[in-house]
């Protein structure tokens, strides 16, 4: 017990730093994923046929292959082609592209469930197709997609764990360094597991709050 407290004392500062890195990567990647997923999702539904196909290919590529390989390819592979990204940039880009593919699919589902009638009504008062998408369809779809998006945010928090493989000292990376420094992998990974549980739990509660705030009677499901 005493030695565990000792260990905890030793590893806590580094792990907390790791938490900071993890949160940063998750947040940036999630936002980047949104910036990608939004237009891609809209393009998948309302774009011309050729664009729909191209976007589907992007989604298949990123959903159909492991994140780890995407990360290695971006970080270690792209320099072969002359593009050398910094480790953080590589992490953001890979996780962002990956998340973008998923977010686009969630958005597509939401867009499709808004209903044809909303589009027709918007066109009937003289809106153009894109204005209708922007001011009628998207505001509803974005609310509908929120639960799926919350899941994605939580998944992202966990998926960031792969960046330790490109020597980014996130929570997982710190765990790996510490466990070989103190030769105590089991307790250290247990502590790290608790960290993730707390992070995920807090994120979950936060996003529930957001869902409640954006709740519109009759549009989004009851949030209780």
């Amino acid at each position, binding site marked *: 017990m005493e030695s565990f407290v000792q260990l905890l004392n030793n590893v806590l500062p580094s792990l907390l730093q790791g938490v900071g890195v993890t949160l940063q990567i998750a947040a940036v990647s999630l936002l980047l994923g949104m910036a990608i997923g939004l237009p891609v999702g809209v393009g998948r539904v309302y774009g011309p046929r050729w664009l729909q196909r191209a976007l589907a290919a992007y989604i298949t590529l990123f959903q159909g292959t492991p994140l780890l390989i995407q990360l290695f390819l971006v970080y270690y592979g792209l320099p072969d082609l002359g593009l050398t990204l910094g480790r953080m940039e590589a992490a953001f880009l890979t996780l962002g592209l990956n998340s973008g593919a998923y977010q686009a699919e969630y958005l597509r589902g939401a867009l499709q469930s808004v209903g044809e009638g*909303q589009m*027709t009504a918007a066109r009937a008062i003289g809106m*153009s197709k894109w204005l209708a998408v922007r001011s009628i369809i998207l505001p509803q779809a974005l609310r509908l997609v929120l639960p799926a998006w919350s899941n994605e945010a939580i998944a992202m928090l966990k998926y960031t764990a792969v960046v330790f493989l490109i020597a980014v000292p996130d929570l997982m990376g710190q765990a790996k360094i510490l466990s070989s420094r103190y030769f105590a992998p089991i307790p250290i990974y247990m502590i790290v597991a608790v960290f993730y549980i707390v992070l995920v739990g807090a994120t979950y509660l936060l996003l529930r709050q957001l869902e409640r705030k954006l709740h519109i009677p009759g549009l989004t499901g009851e949030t209780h």
Partner: protein
Amino acid sequence: MSTATAPILRIENIYKSFGETHVLTGISLTVQPQEVVVLVGPSGSGKSTLLRCINLLSPPDSGRIWLEEQEITAPGVNPDKVRQRIGMVFQDFNLFNHLTALGNVMIGLTKVRKMSKKEAHDLAMFELERVGLVDRAHHYPAQLSGGQKQRVAIARALGMDPHMMLFDEPTSALDPELTGEVLEVMQQLAREGMTMIVVSHEMGFARQVASRVVFMEGGVVVEEGTPTQMFEQPVHERTRVFLRKIADMDSGGR
């Protein structure tokens, strides 16, 4: 039915098919300003399709349509602009679910008519007053009754300052008790001189308000005339049978 003024709408021989289904097979129809035309016909006869052709939501395959002397089926016409002049109200309301009653009326004003927030708000409140819903302005669609929803939909269309209005079975999704409040608003509109084409099987409304009843079947106009003519002495046997049937339903339904 002949007046000296120019017709507000002239439809000439339009055709519309969906794949193998020939829905409209040569429809012609002329509407004068301030007329209220009630369109009746069996299910699938193409009534909704005709309305959607008129405001170009689904443009006709052939044939021509003039709105206030402008040929709107001509190439180069911006359909968005045309639709601003033609209000449309649907059977299932299609209110924007994420906006309050007020928001539903305002959004077209700010986004399409480019009004300022303030102007839009005031006009929207005016239109809501017209349909008797000022006290429901801040309710979301899910918090409104069917009749209230339909009245908001009417206010939304009126907000665009349309030159004519199309109604596609505006009361058929409503409980009988809620139908009355919507018909009343429409009657009021007619009194104010709004030109209207109404698909409806509410025969009481047709008798009292319609200047003309048009009976469609199989993608063509079978017969048209004043309500009295159509209800009392229709030329065609089919018209008689159909109108008798819906008159029966109408009384049975109450």
